[in-house]
């Protein structure tokens, strides 16, 4: 069967199973991969299905451990205490609150290059504050989601650029300025677009009335130890290489979760772990399914067909191709999009300043985190605010996402001009 027919068959099987038969997305993806393999004459290809799912092994572990971390914060009462502290600090000014919140949301992503880490570590702290200040729940989810994506792109760590740079021998140096140039305006505009209209200015009395119960009087600074552990292991290896061990992001979340056992009110850690596994299971299954889907796409030549179809667009459609294909492929894997499409596009734009090109492409690619079926950031943000349907959050991400897309394409188009200043 020709590659394109295999691809259409896989998509069709997925749509039928996921939409019509209401199968869980992860299982629908796995079965559509299996159908593709069978149709292409590759048989069951067990090895490929398992190998493909392992492409997301680390991400799956991050999700699991970060979910555990959130559960520990909630169970120990630390989350409420931190929410109370943030409310007390920022309740007076809408703009200041929104900007401070955006910075806090972005921070873990800036250090780790992972939107997932940002959303799952900062999101649970920020979401209750914003909702208590009047921001609707879905908009809160959108804010958390966009904060995570911008954090992933912001310097100092942008893994998307590292991946693209690796493919064209561009060292990861000199990117701070171009990245700040594109990210700072977005980091200011995005929270204002999402939250300024709905956020209420409240007085001290009202603030005190909505303040959740804090355990600070009982436990003092012990409450913040999990965050110190988190920050220590996230930042330490970069600041003191060789001295502070790099235990990987899943290890960092596990260490911070274990610290949480001793820093707030007591709880059953085993039970909390079970809850975390239960909650994280659907998204872990989706990632495993996406991995299988990509592996079978590659195995059957459908990936090559897809990439070549995009690259075959006439040159005047190149920017349109970038704007559509990079986020679209990100719907399967954002890092995959950076590697599979980002590198060829970097090469296509090789006559422009590579620092500007890669910054712009990473800004566009980051939007893939919003695109189904994976829609990683959308799903996690939904998980943070307890919303079962992540599509409802994506609706509120649309305008900031279009701004981000325009900024990325704008930077690509204006690269020759910007080159003189940056």
């Amino acid at each position: 069967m020709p590659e394109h027919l295999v691809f259409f068959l896989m998509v069709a099987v997925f749509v039928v199973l996921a939409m019509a038969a209401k199968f869980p997305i992860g299982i629908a993806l796995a079965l559509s991969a299996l159908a593709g393999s069978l149709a292409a004459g590759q048989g069951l290809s067990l090895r490929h299905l398992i190998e493909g799912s392992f492409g997301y092994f680390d991400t799956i572990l991050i999700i699991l451990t970060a979910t555990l971390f959130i559960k520990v914060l909630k169970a120990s009462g630390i989350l409420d205490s931190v929410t109370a502290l943030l409310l007390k600090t920022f309740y007076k000014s809408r703009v200041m609150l929104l900007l401070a919140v955006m910075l806090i949301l972005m921070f873990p992503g800036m250090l780790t290059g992972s939107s997932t880490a940002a959303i799952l570590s900062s999101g649970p702290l920020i979401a209750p504050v914003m909702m208590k200040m009047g921001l609707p729940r879905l908009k809160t989810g959108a804010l958390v989601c966009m904060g995570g994506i911008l954090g992933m792109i912001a310097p100092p760590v942008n893994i998307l650029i590292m991946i693209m740079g690796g493919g064209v021998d561009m060292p990861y140096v000199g990117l701070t300025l171009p990245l700040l140039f594109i990210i700072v305006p977005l980091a200011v505009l995005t929270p204002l677009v999402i939250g300024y209209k709905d956020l209420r200015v409240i007085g001290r009395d009202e603030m005190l009335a909505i303040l959740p119960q804090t355990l600070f009087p009982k436990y003092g600074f012990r409450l913040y130890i999990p965050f110190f552990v988190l920050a220590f292991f996230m930042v330490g290896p970069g600041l003191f290489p060789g001295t502070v061990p790099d235990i990987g992001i899943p290890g960092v979340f596990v260490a911070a979760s274990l610290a949480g056992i001793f820093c707030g009110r007591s709880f059953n850690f085993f039970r909390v772990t079970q809850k975390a596994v239960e909650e994280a299971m659907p998204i872990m299954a989706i990632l495993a399914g996406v991995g299988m889907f990509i592996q079978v796409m590659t195995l059957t030549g459908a990936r090559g067909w897809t990439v070549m179809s995009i690259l075959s667009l006439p040159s005047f459609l190149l920017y349109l191709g970038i704007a559509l294909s990079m986020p679209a492929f990100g719907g399967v894997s954002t890092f995959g999009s950076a590697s599979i499409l980002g590198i060829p596009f970097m090469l296509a734009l090789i006559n422009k300043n590579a620092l500007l090109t890669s910054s712009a492409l990473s800004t566009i690619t980051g939007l893939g985190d919003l695109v189904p079926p994976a829609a990683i950031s959308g799903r996690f943000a939904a998980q943070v605010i307890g919303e079962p349907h992540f599509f409802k959050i994506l609706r509120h991400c649309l305008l900031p996402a279009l701004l981000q897309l325009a900024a990325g394409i704008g930077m690509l188009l204006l690269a020759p001009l910007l080159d003189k200043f940056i």
Partner: protein
Amino acid sequence: MKEIKGNKLSAAFFFLLTLTVCFFSGRSFLSLHQPEAIFPGPGLTEQKMLSSYFPALKNTPGDTAVYFFRGKEEGGRVLILGGTHPNEPAGLVTAVLLIENIRLERGSLFIVPRANASGFSHSDPQEGNPQRFAVPTPSGQRLFRLGSRLTNPVHQWPDPAIYVNPAGQKLSGMEARNLNRCYPGRAKGNLTEKVAWAVMELIRRENIDLGIDLHESAPEYPVINAIVFHENSSELAALALMDIQAQGFDIRLEASPANLRGLSHREWGDHAGVKAILLETPNASHGRLKGKPSSSLIVEGKDKFYTRASRLGWLFVPYGEEGIPLSLRVARHLAGVEALLASLEALEPEKSVICGNIPPPHQVIEKGLGPFLHPPD
């Protein structure tokens, strides 16, 4: 999303299904841990392990065989590395061809065919590659493993979020498992850094004069059909270039960028003063535009998507319908090795390495790899 309600029966079913899948896929994965046989020719002087230069590597999955050839006369000392990236098969096959054929007249030659031994024990997820490729010989097919660019995560895990390599360059975390980003290595580092350190120890202790690292790159990658050279080897590389071009191969020079750190062509030269060269040939099977991955894609190198990409001007090498077969890629490497040895002799006669019985590149192209490979077991 539909919630599936389970019961004991469904749990038992899925448990058994999982066990079955694990058994069959696990058996397939484990088969890659068995190295393919290499049959050294009579010219071999000694075979040792890389850990003999760095004992901490002993009994680890990073340890790998070093094939040593010594000539009758003293001369220069050359190191050839294949399999730094186990998904670039021309490096491994060129090294095997040399090991199974050459006789050294003068000087010393050290060949490491599987530089990242751990990388040969797994495949890259989501690349859909075959685990092995088959090279036809007159007595049957020789099977070689097609591994991964990176060390097996079973042997080195987890990846850091950001990898700061021993040369101080910041890279994405997975590059911590890329041998050609880990030079000059760390004696107390991770497994890949230890392998890099051991290679540096080999270079230092054996007083290597010239190091050659054999690679392949995707046809859409700009550094291709190239001799990448450290600035201390510019004259050597330029001489070799003329020689290779005179043999009819299209090839160009690429200077090793001073700010791209951790690569063999940079750190071997900077840290051990050795002349450092990296050779690249075009390989569609690890490109992003490839069609259906298969043994024949690797060996015959025909790919309709690359042919189309070539027509559209997306590639840095011409890619016709005839493809770029493994025999041509290996022949290019052989021509490169021959030319570099000849250039070393021309520039520093006292360091010359004279090597006989190298499979002639044009015969390799004409007859294929089979006649120059030992028959399969």
